[in-house]
């Protein structure tokens, strides 16, 4: 059986061109709607305005790297609250796990940017060059004026889409209307052009040419997904028991020995990945479900029931083959694995929402100066220094009172202030030095460590927050 002796296998293979055919049906319509929604969100979001008062940007979604702030409608995330972003990423990861274990590669088939943009690019291709057969003809044709004109038109439209895609990206990082003006006048920051250029390039290349190669060879997600899917996962599959043996139906005697599959190749022709779903589950299948639409259309034409290719679980194949009805969908979806993913996902979400509502409008950090841990003053008292960073997350400048408990055993002063009161401007972080002094021979001065609590009180709102730390005496 070996052919390696006479003819060694090729080390490299050229990309097989794929010409997906136009298809109509439920899943195609669903994909159109999802494409409009996802692309709409991507392109329009930076232009939504949201009034936050005079000192803050009025862009609803803004990642402001210069002030290290993330704005999302009414939520404002400071760098020290990055756990919100981490939490959202964890939720996104768990969400993907959940959807993959329940519904297979729905992310790949419907929502992944690579899929959505490739879909858009293929649509453009179809408008300009025609449907599958015309495109195959054009591909094989010589490079004459007609072919050059069509190709250049297609590439030009692709390029426009790519520039818009790369361009929309940078608007998330700066005030969109201002940046657009700057871009038009050529006065935008250098880095904005770098990002637009590189994202234009990748969009053009990935959407126009690389397409399924990205999913098959570059993306790690298909490999990871295999670990989340099992025989209960609902995925796109071919009912081989019903379709085989496949064959062209003729009005002949042996026609009734054939299965429902008329071997029309409709499912292969519409596939954006260029595979044959009748070979069974395979790495390259992104479960876009277009083959279901294609096959359903064909089955309707030949007067057979729909669903020769359908969303189904692997366990159902065996049941249906033996004449039993398939398990209900909810039984497939509701199983230990999906319940665990859901609980984890909801847990992280609940934590984030709680953290969002519980977080204070003021926040401060204490870093005790440990070089030296204490200073002996001329009267023999012991002084510790603490660096305080007070974040005022409000739209106005506020005064803050700094104090230390337990009261009465320490003297406190704030560098440069007479009364322990500091003012932090709106939406800024104030750095202050707090000196805490224990009197000569007092217990705190003689002890090693004394627990203390540093309080910061907002004089306007009367909000109080504290941080626990320790006072270093001579005893250690």
């Amino acid at each position, binding site marked *: 059986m070996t*052919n390696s002796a006479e003819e060694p296998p090729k080390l*490299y293979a050229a990309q097989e061109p794929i010409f997906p055919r136009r298809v109509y049906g439920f899943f195609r319509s669903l994909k159109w709607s999802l494409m409009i929604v996802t692309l709409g969100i991507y392109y329009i979001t930076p232009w939504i305005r949201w009034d936050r008062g005079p000192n803050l940007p009025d862009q609803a979604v803004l990642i402001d790297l210069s002030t290290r702030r993330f704005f999302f409608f009414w939520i404002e995330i400071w760098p020290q609250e990055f756990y919100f972003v981490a939490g959202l990423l964890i939720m996104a990861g768990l969400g993907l796990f959940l959807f993959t274990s329940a519904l297979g590669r729905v992310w790949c088939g419907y929502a992944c940017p690579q899929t959505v943009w490739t879909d858009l690019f293929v649509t453009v291709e179809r408008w300009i060059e025609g449907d599958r057969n015309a495109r195959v003809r054009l591909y094989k044709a010589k490079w004459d004026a007609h072919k050059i004109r069509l190709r250049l038109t297609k590439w030009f439209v692709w390029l426009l889409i790519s520039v818009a895609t790369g361009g929309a990206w940078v608007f998330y990082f700066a005030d969109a209307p201002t940046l657009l003006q700057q871009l038009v006048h050529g006065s935008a920051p250098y880095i904005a052009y770098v990002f637009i250029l590189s994202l234009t390039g990748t969009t053009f290349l990935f959407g126009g040419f690389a397409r399924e190669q990205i999913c098959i*060879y570059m993306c790690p997600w298909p490999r990871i997904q295999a670990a989340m899917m099992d025989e209960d996962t609902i995925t796109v599959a071919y009912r081989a028991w019903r379709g085989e043996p496949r064959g062209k139906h003729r009005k002949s005697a042996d026609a009734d020995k054939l299965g429902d599959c008329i071997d029309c190749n409709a499912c292969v022709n519409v596939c954006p990945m260029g595979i044959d779903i009748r070979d069974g589950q395979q790495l390259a299948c992104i479960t876009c479900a277009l083959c279901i639409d294609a096959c359903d259309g064909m089955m309707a034409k030949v007067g057979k029931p729909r669903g020769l290719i359908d969303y189904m679980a692997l366990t159902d194949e065996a049941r249906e083959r033996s004449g039993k009805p398939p398990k209900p969908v909810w039984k497939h979806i509701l199983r230990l694995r999906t319940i665990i993913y859901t609980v984890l996902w909801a847990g992280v979400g609940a934590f984030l929402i709680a953290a969002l509502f519980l977080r204070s409008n003021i926040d401060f950090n204490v870093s005790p100066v440990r070089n*030296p841990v204490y200073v*002996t*003053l*001329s009267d*023999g008292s012991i002084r510790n220094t603490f660096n305080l960073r007070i974040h005022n997350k409000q739209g106005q400048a506020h005064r803050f009172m700094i104090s230390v408990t337990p009261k009465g055993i320490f003297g406190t002063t704030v*560098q440069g202030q007479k009364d322990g009161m500091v003012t932090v401007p709106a939406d800024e972080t104030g750095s202050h*030095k707090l000196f805490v002094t224990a009197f000569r021979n007092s217990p705190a001065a003689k002890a090693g460590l004394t627990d203390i609590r540093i309080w910061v009180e907002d004089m306007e709102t009367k909000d109080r927050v504290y941080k626990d730390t320790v006072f270093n005496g001579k005893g250690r």
Partner: protein
Amino acid sequence: MSKKDDKHPEVPTTGHSWDGIEELDNPLPRWWLWTFYACIAFAIYLFIWYPSWPISTKGAWAGLGHYSSRADVAKEIKKYNDANAAVDKRLASADLNAIEKDPELNSYAMNGGAAVFRTWCAQCHGAGANGAKGFPSLIDDDWLWGGTIQDIHQTVSHGIRYAADPDTRDSEMPAWGDQLSKAEIANVVQYVLSISGGQADKAAAKAGATVFADNCAACHGEDAKGGRDFGAPNLTDAIWLYGGDVKTITKTVTYGRKGVMPAWSGRLSESQIRQVATYIHQQGGGE
């Protein structure tokens, strides 16, 4: 051994088999090969354009682009120096008392001063400015020569007992070993201990008080609280530059002390001296 898989009759397997699982021997996509060649081309460009091969002991290939990370740093430093030129000039000529009240000057001086301190001062005074034996702490409330911004500025500029600078602060704790007897020294040590809250022999301290009044009070004052005109330490407080135990005080009295701090004017710019003076003044001890 390589046989064809049932489902993929067109693809040979590698012949490897693990528990019946076999590995298909698919060819690599050709564009992948191209990216590999592109990487090689890029590597060649890097080697030619940027500094790379060591050619001789004298140096390496400088690259056609003459790139230098050191030049980048110099450029960046120059950029910031240029941007700060105005405030730097203003700081150098501002009234010393006005610096801390001017947010721009103060912020510039505090940041610059921290860098100057860590570069030039931390070797003796410590990174935390808390000093060491013989090198005063700059963050307590005790000053030999004064802790106002003017005093600190003067000390940093001209140093202490720094012979090369005519304006340096000068004084001397003489060695009393030649002039006082051992008993007198022992007594005056007990006296100094007694006035600074230490455990002392009362009789010896009483005798030492006379010795102190005759010999030490000239600089340290009748009340032993020191004098900033001479940089004479306050002997009644809890802070000791060299140490407050009997042995160290005896040594100080017997052999004298003569700590030196260099003058920094001429080595640091006027602006840098003001930066570090402002920085020290705000470390907790400033007057």
